[in-house]
């Protein structure tokens, strides 16, 4: 299943630290909403999981508002993407400030 990514609630809560977001996502639907705003496709939402595009770097940026470091990039088996790609979308949409 290389074309999908299972995002657990535990992982989403670990990555969830964007300054404009509430301290903790209420549920996985809220996580999905945040991901969709950054153009990450979400295919299925469950109680403690969601299934989405296999873009862990982008997902990390969308939830944390930061880019992943080299060590984090090596920690998963999925393709890495250009750092800052999702952050740019957040800035373009006026959700985050350019300096962030």
């Amino acid at each position, binding site marked *: *299943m*290389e074309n*999908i*990514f*299972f*995002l*657990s*609630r*535990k*992982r989403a809560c*670990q990555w969830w630290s964007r300054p404009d977001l509430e301290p903790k996502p209420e*549920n*996985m*639907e809220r996580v999905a909403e945040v991901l969709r705003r950054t153009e990450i*496709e*979400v*295919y*299925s*939402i*469950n*109680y*403690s*999981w969601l*299934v989405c595009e*296999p873009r862990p770097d982008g997902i990390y940026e969308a939830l944390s508002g930061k880019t992943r470091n080299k060590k984090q990039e090596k*920690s*998963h*088996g*999925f393709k890495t993407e250009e750092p800052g790609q999702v952050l740019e979308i957040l800035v373009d949409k006026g959700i985050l400030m350019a300096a962030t």
Partner: protein
Amino acid sequence: MISTKTAMVNIQVNSNLQASQKMRVLIADDDSASRQLLQVYLGDYGSCSTAASGYKAIQAFKDALNQWQPYDLICLEIIMSEMDGLQVLKEIRRIEKENGISKFDSVKVIITTINNDQKDAKEAFNAGCHAYLIKPILREKLLEEIRKIGLIE
């Protein structure tokens, strides 16, 4: 124009909106009374499926992943004929790894067993179970463990 793939995804997302509010539980035990008891205990907290053997549990787990509706919790008996719970747990972890699901994200597994052998309990924790409960299972104790692992509040 909406592609077939996009349309399928939309249908899947829409049909999951209600389901996403409910925890999905798999109860794997070859004793029907134990399966029924856990269903009663957990019925208020989620949607329970049952598997009467280790093989069926693995199949149910695979099917759920393939349908993009992974289980949130698995209650697993160790002592089962044909394939025991430890083998099932190890196979589940192998399938998760194969699907890019890390140990950190792995499905929560609570062993609910008649087996009070400490060596097996240690092996179960090494294989990635989150709690080990000896039968008879008390409702409050089970719920307490589910709370501890963060699935309910």
